[in-house]
């Protein structure tokens, strides 16, 4: 049995439609019109204990709505949710003791308090005895390297330090499942890397199941072994990261620098992406032509330098968003 089980989950929102201008505003008061938006539509998935899964999709795909239903913030219209065998709607409080949440766009910490005071407050929220909270803070301050700023008011912290504190606050009660909604939003590459390695360590040391939503391909590639892609409220892909790469990385990018000019046109399986005389960039569909065939076409003796790479994961994900598979 999975630690998170979602069956036929659906959620719609009723949105008021207003025609433009003052006339439209008056009309909408007298005779309001509404449209129903299906934010989540018949979503099914199951997550096992200790997994780090990426739950991704374009803006407005239904990621946040799903995560909010899983954590008991929103009521679903249809379907069932079980997180640690608890129904978030019927037992919101019971579930809250078992899960942690970090919303990158929403602060949970009191900004005028120090991280230490905030952690103590969170300890009280989860009814943890003082001595245990102290012990936990000591453990987490070491793991998340908070010594330098644990006694500085949150409002004076950098964004990276604040996110680290937000994650620690969500771990005070030792949750079994952690929901991270865009935890690296707005962070610089160094801090992002730091947060990622901390998430990895946390998953390894505490066996915490991590449900991650992010627009950052780096987060997904470096942290997750499984990816669920949602678009227009529906799951369009639920697969391992390896499978995603294996099935969708059937195209290679070949960049070559040649001694003499090469005249190459698009052929079946080879697309010329860039031709600058002595520099060529080709896309080789390896289901139709091998990379060796492409090199033979270019004449290996004519090649000074060559670079063969995969299509970036970001492009693969973008094409899945666009095509909807």
């Amino acid at each position, binding site marked *: 049995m999975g630690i998170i089980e979602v069956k036929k989950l659906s959620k719609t*929102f009723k949105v008021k439609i207003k025609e433009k201008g003052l006339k439209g505003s008056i009309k909408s008061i007298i005779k309001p019109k509404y449209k129903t938006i299906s934010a989540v539509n018949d979503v099914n998935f199951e997550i096992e204990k200790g997994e780090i899964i990426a739950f991704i999709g374009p803006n407005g795909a239904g990621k*946040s709505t799903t995560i*909010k239903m899983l*954590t*008991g*913030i*929103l*009521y679903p219209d249809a379907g069932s949710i079980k997180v640690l065998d608890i129904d978030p709607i019927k037992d*919101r*409080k*019971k579930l*809250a*003791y078992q*899960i942690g*949440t970090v*919303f990158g*766009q*929403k*602060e*949970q*910490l*009191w*900004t*005028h*308090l120090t991280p230490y*005071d905030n952690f103590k*407050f969170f300890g*009280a*929220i*989860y*009814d943890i005895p003082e001595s245990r909270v102290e012990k936990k803070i000591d453990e987490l301050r070491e793991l998340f390297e908070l010594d330098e700023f644990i006694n500085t008011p949150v409002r004076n912290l950098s964004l990276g330090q604040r996110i680290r504190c937000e994650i620690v606050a969500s771990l005070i009660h030792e949750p079994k499942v952690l929901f991270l909604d865009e935890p690296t939003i707005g962070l610089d590459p160094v801090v992002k890397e730091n947060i990622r390695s901390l998430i990895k360590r946390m998953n390894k040391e505490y066996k915490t199941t991590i449900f991650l939503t992010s627009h950052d391909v780096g987060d997904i590639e470096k942290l997750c072994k499984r990816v669920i892609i949602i678009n227009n409220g529906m799951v369009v892909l639920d697969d391992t990261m390896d499978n995603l790469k294996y099935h969708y990385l059937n195209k290679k990018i070949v960049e070559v620098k040649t001694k003499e000019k090469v005249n190459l046109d698009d052929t079946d399986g080879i697309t010329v992406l860039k031709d600058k005389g002595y520099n060529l960039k080709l896309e080789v569909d390896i289901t139709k032509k091998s990379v060796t065939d492409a090199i033979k076409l270019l004449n290996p003796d004519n090649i000074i330098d060559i670079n063969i790479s995969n299509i970036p994961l970001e492009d693969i994900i973008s094409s899945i968003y666009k095509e909807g598979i």
Partner: protein
Amino acid sequence: MLMAVRNQFKVSLLSIKYAIMRELLNKVTFVTNIVFMILNNASFIIQWVVLFSIKDDFGGFGLKDVLILWGLSAMAYGFSRFFFKKAFSLSETINTGKLDSFLVQPKNVLLSAITTDVEPSALGDILYGYIILFIYGMNLKNFILLTIYGMTGGLVLTSISVILNSLSFWFSKTDVIADTGNSLMINFSTYPDGIFKGVVKLMLYTIVPVGIVVYIPIQVIIEFNIIKLSITILFTIFIVCLAFLVFNKGLKKYSSTNLMVARI
């Protein structure tokens, strides 16, 4: 169950403590807010002193009765605004999706949401109530009664605000309705009930329950009556329960938002 209630109170008190700590970051503003609120309330009494110099009686109330009426109203207002400030802007909390952070915590959402801020000037209202009691006639009985009625009045004001602000779960822009409801309560609570007759009087003991939380308590402070005391306490329990009921019902309609917000 008892443990859960105890823990809930512990967290709510801690939340209020932290909110006070935030206000104390600027001590001068904190103190001046309190002092100026006391002076502001006192200025209204001066108007009544002038009125009583013209006429001895207003709706059966003498100057001392008006004093205690103002003292009690200020206390109720102060109690609600100091401890439950956010109840008066609950619709904004609902509309901007700020309930999210309370919904993921294992505590009562309403209590958590309304105890995250304090209004320092409201402490001036509470102190003003006790200052008035000194002028009116301080004794243990009056002190206890004023304290109880300040709390019941504050709870009723908070509950009415929660009920009206909770309409935001169903309709937009309900903050205006909530503000009007609160203003009605405050405005009526500073006049002697004897000046109101007929439908208005009926209204003051029903939909705008100033009568139950201010006029009856004044009668009890003047002449103690256990039945009248019980009426106010029972009504307070009723309206507090109703506020929780309406809020929890509305919570099922909560739609959250993806606005970027900070806890300030």
